[in-house]
């Protein structure tokens, strides 16, 4: 049920179903102009990017985008009270039902798309009734309560339109229309004549608007601020007769000024389909004339022409509105989107902050492991376990001898006379799938294996069939009878955990070791599975979020950071020793030309 007071009193939090940037921006502009402290829109359910960037006033803000309702955090689902659905007509029914099922605090919504089947609109109307919510539309540009709420394109999408129509101050005239353009036309006519609206609702041009004229008119009747109702209707449909009955039975008492368009149909041999879906009179009752006559008989002031309708509106007494809160009107033409966006750190007005905290206190009060883990994850970590594990891994991976390819490259570059940064870069650029980059791939393996429900045997067989090594398994030197002492140390961090991923990795190791003694869980594989377990159990990461960390190479980040220390130390060491240019001798290079014959 559409109830103005309920909307005004609500904690208005809006989610978009589908994205329509111009409309979203216009809602934010409306709210900013009306002096709201924060935007009402808390998210967008749509495919595409993870955030959309908008302006609140001149300040740029990011609105999170969720792929589906499944990805909307519970906290958000529980605070949303309204939705604006802008997906196409064929998806209106399924997406609206999904929204209603997912939003326990829902008060109502607007459906924007044209071409929603009638049957779907009627089914949605029934759902609304059972759930006690309202829906404006289908094919509605929305609802508007000046200064308070704009849900849809209603009132315009350009900030100048909002200024011109004086939409930040609430008045006493309620505006209703079957047509979106006309809704806005009426708002503008009233504004130009010094009148202000109490609220406006566009039913949509479909045959069965879910919020009916009667329901909306009753909302105006019950709204203490509304003194007059203005209605633009069209031929087609019979919803006006319910309004007449409500007037005649004394339920609707406030004065109504109306126009029913479509007299022109009389000059056609057979009533054609006009612009809106419902605009076709099949029976006498549905003609513009019949509806005008019925409304007149019920006591509505009906304009015979649009001009007369406008003149009737001019006669509505302008009522002194409450204190003008003073709309915030700034020129917005110079707004520009930022070139980059970040969630890590800021430096504003000479004050540097990291993850929202002053840089100095952040660095003084936290361990290096905590800082690295938090920055790499983009948010402050919660658990001691992760902090300690990261600290340990950073130390453990710091160097592994001068033989490994990254260290060799650093040393060669250093001996070629290059500087610190070049030598370090040459070492780091060596990191990849065969050297140092295995942690990330191992994490991908354990994540896939443990969540797919495959047995360790099946998992190993799959790799064997595809003839690829399992990252995280196998060592050059250590064997099952001579285990790598680092691995048991790493795995010890899961003592207090359920350790789903580590257990899976270990059971894979059992299978591989039975094939060959050196196919043990190695350092990369162990770091990957323990990290997965800690993130999932101690930091609350979902499988989906862990997959994302794999996609963005988070698991390799620790190696890159830590091993940089090793590369730098090799560079400095070489400079101190001053060994001179490195060159291979003839005996160091084998002749492989016979291979090519």
């Amino acid at each position, binding site marked *: 049920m559409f109830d103005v007071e309920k909307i005004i009193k609500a904690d208005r939090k809006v989610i978009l179903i589908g994205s329509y940037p*111009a409309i979203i921006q216009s809602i934010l502009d409306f709210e900013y102009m009306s002096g709201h402290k924060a935007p009402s829109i808390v998210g967008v359910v749509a495919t595409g990017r993870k955030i959309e960037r908008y302006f609140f006033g001149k300040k740029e803000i990011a609105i999170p985008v969720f792929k589906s309702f499944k990805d909307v955090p519970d906290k958000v689902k529980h605070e949303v009270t309204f939705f604006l659905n802008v997906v196409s*007509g*064929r998806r209106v029914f399924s997406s609206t039902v999904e929204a209603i099922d997912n939003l326990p605090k829902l008060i109502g919504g607007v459906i924007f798309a*044209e*071409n*929603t*089947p*009638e*049957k779907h609109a009627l089914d949605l109307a029934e759902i609304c009734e059972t759930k006690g919510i309202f829906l404006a539309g289908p094919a509605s*540009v929305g609802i508007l309560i000046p200064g308070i709420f704009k849900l*849809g*394109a209603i*009132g*315009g*999408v*350009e900030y*100048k*339109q909002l200024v*011109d129509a004086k939409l930040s101050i609430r008045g006493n005239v309620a505006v209703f*229309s*079957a*047509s*979106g*353009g*006309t*809704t*806005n*036309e009426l708002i*503008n*006519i009233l504004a*130009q004549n010094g009148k202000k609206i109490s609220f406006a609702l566009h039913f949509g*041009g479909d*045959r*069965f608007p879910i919020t*009916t004229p009667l329901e909306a008119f009753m909302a105006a009747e019950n709204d203490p601020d509304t003194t007059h109702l203005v209605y*633009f209707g*069209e*031929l087609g449909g019979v*919803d006006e007769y319910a309004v007449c009955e409500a007037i005649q039975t004394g339920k609707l008492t406030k004065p109504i000024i109306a*126009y029913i*368009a479509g*007299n*022109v149909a009389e*000059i056609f041999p*057979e009533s*054609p*389909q*006009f*612009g*809106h*879906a*419902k605009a*076709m009179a*099949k029976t006498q009752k549905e003609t*513009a004339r019949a509806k005008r006559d019925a409304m007149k008989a019920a006591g509505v002031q009906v304009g*015979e*022409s*649009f*001009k007369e309708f*406008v003149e009737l509106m001019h006669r509505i007494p302008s009522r002194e509105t409450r204190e003008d809160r003073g709309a915030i009107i700034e020129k917005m033409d110079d707004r520009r989107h930022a070139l980059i966006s970040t969630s890590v750190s800021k430096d504003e007005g000479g004050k540097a902050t990291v993850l929202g905290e002053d840089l100095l206190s952040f660095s003084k009060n936290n361990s290096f492991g905590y800082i690295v883990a938090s920055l790499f994850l983009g948010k402050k970590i919660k658990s001691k376990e992760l902090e300690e594990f990261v600290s340990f891994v950073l130390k453990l991976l710091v160097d592994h001898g001068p033989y490994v390819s990254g260290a060799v490259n650093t040393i060669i570059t250093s001996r070629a006379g290059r500087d610190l940064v070049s030598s370090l870069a040459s070492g780091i650029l060596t990191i990849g799938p065969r050297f140092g980059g295995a942690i990330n791939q191992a994490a991908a393996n354990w994540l896939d294996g443990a969540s797919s429900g495959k047995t360790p045997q099946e998992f190993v067989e799959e790799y064997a069939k595809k003839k690829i090594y399992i990252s995280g398994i196998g060592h050059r030197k250590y064997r099952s009878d001579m285990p790598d002492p680092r691995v048991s140390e790493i795995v010890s961090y899961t003592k207090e955990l359920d350790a789903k991923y580590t257990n899976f990795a270990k059971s894979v190791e059992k299978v591989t070791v039975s094939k060959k003694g050196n196919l043990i869980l190695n350092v990369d594989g162990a770091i990957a599975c323990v990290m997965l377990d800690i993130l999932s159990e101690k930091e609350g990461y979902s499988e989906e979020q862990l997959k994302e960390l794999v996609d963005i190479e988070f698991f390799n980040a620790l190696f890159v950071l830590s091993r940089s220390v090793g590369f730098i130390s090799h560079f400095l060491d070489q400079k101190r020793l001053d060994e001179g240019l490195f060159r291979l001798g003839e005996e160091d290079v084998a002749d492989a030309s016979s291979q090519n014959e």
Partner: protein
Amino acid sequence: MPRVKLSEFRAKTIVNNYMGNPYSGFPFDAGRDPISKIDNAVVQGKTYVAKVDQGIKKRFKQGLVKLDLKNPTDIVDAIAEIRKKHFEYFLVEEYVPHDNNDEKYISLERTRKGIIINYSHQGGVDIESHSDEVGRILYKDSSDAHKVAGALGVEPEGFVEKLIELFDINYFSFLEINPLVVSLKKPYMLDIAAEVDSAAEFFVDTWSSNDFRNSRTGVLTEEEKNVHKLSEKSSSSLTLTVLNPNGAIFMLLSGGGVSLALADEVANLGKGDLLANYGEYSGNPTEEETYIYTKNLLSLLIKSNAPQKVLIIGGGVANFTDVRVTFRGIIHAMTEVMPELQRQNVKVFVRRGGPHQDEGLKDMEDYLSYNKIEGSVHGPKLVVSEIVAKALESIAIDN
């Protein structure tokens, strides 16, 4: 464009298939189908009916149904004769002789409250003359179906329930069977008129937009067909209907509601007979779409032989349709025929508001004055319907 008429052929196919009786009639598109189609389909010894299948009411009284055709030549001749009245789509089916007293009436309609059944034991072409015999019932459950079936004397069991089911799953909005002949072994549906919800095309596989019929199909102008094609491919709405090809008042309107109010205004001012077209674009069409739309409208305007013509570019204060972008499309189309517009001394009156209205209106004003086109350009300060009075005045003075 929701409620549309479905071809009788398609409606009968859907209804009969659902009832388990395959339908043997066949459609004939006079402009496209070869006559051999009739030769191949007709069975010797049977007699046939040929009738117009374009959603026309009262066909029998207008002579658009030919009965008792005994061979393919009869059928071809019957179609040729009716075709003279500008009809293109026909339905040919077996002729079923019956007693007029066995003609019943039933129709279903989707309303806000549910499906309403109208029924009468006295059906046939004169249904309207005994409308007091028509019962009306809001369908709730099968007891309502029993009541209707009883009143009509239909067997077998479940006929009415099946009608309700097929009505619902095929997204019908209206279905009328008149007459329904009940004396035969199974209920026989002689004539069916059906409307479906065109918005549901995606959800059904029993019908498609190819099955939509319009009484004007045979007389549509190329321009109307072009706009229809344009609209089908667009996420915006674009419509165009020619009322009077030699009209003087051409309307290039935007917005479903305001366009209707402006057309009303022409009728209110007593100039309905001069109105050349109705149509509107809305839902933020692109510049290209607006260009194609305008091009087709201007083509009609130029062809009209009215002595004095006026073009009204009218619309309310749009919520989200960009005035600057759509006006660019309009200007592009006008530029292509500008010499002709000047030669015919076409006057142009503009009233529009919405996103980027200042830029759009200025572009239009500069363009019209540069090309010395008479008329005027207005923003939201002018009451929208006033543009009609201004435009009509300009013709009145000249005439």
